[in-house]
């Protein structure tokens, strides 16, 4: 069974819900346990909200991985203002908005791999993976 990559444009809080639903559906088809499905969907919710809060618009790609090891890869991309101090943004409790400052560090905690690149004035890319255990 092939699992199709999902691409979700993120422009408003309604799209955050859409991203969560699409992610959970894909994680289910890859074979993740219901606990892992929720962890992955929650991580996506956090980074999708970061896009809406800080960048206003962007996109999230959810793709199955199946090269020897199965898993799911999520790429969140935006053309927002970028993050000036990445290490600070990854600190728990740090926020410049109405959030809890859980977004990036929270997503990192829920996934197996987490990588972020950001250019001020250009945007941010978050890449994260979770493997089927």
């Amino acid at each position, binding site marked *: 069974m092939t699992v199709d990559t999902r691409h979700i444009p993120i422009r408003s*809080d309604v799209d955050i819900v859409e991203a969560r*639903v699409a992610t959970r559906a894909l994680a289910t088809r890859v074979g993740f346990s219901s606990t892992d499905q*929720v962890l992955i*969907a929650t991580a996506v919710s956090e980074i999708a909200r970061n896009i809406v809060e800080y960048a206003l618009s962007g996109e999230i790609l959810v793709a199955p991985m199946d090269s020897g090891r199965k898993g799911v890869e999520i790429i969140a991309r935006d053309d927002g203002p970028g993050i000036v101090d990445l290490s600070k943004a990854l600190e728990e409790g740090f926020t410049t908005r109405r*959030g809890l400052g859980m977004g990036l560090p*929270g997503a990192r905690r829920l996934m197996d791999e987490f990588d972020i690149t950001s250019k001020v004035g250009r945007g941010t890319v978050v890449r994260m993976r979770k493997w089927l255990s």
Partner: protein
Amino acid sequence: MRVPILKQGNYLIASIQSALSDEDLIQLHDDLAQRVGKYRSKGVIVDVTVLDVMDSFATRTLRDLAQSVRLRGAETVIVGIQPEVAFAMVQLGLELGNVHTALDLEEGLELMGGLPV
């Protein structure tokens, strides 16, 4: 989607029916804070059984909701947090603070009956 709020005696029961956007959650907060006064309710039960994700925003909004309701003279019980959702919340370090929780609606009503309001 607006969350239906049912009045039952001294209590209000908000049964979330589907995944909620941030706006829906804020609307629920506002609706409950307002209706607690309108119906002079002593307690609010929010049933989150259908929510399969409770991220930092949802958790904070529910905590704020309980705080607003308390300031209006009533207590809140959150019921129906699913086991996977509870696990994810713990992993994320999310807490509901001193907000009451119960397994389901039945236990929520029982708990509410014993609260000093």
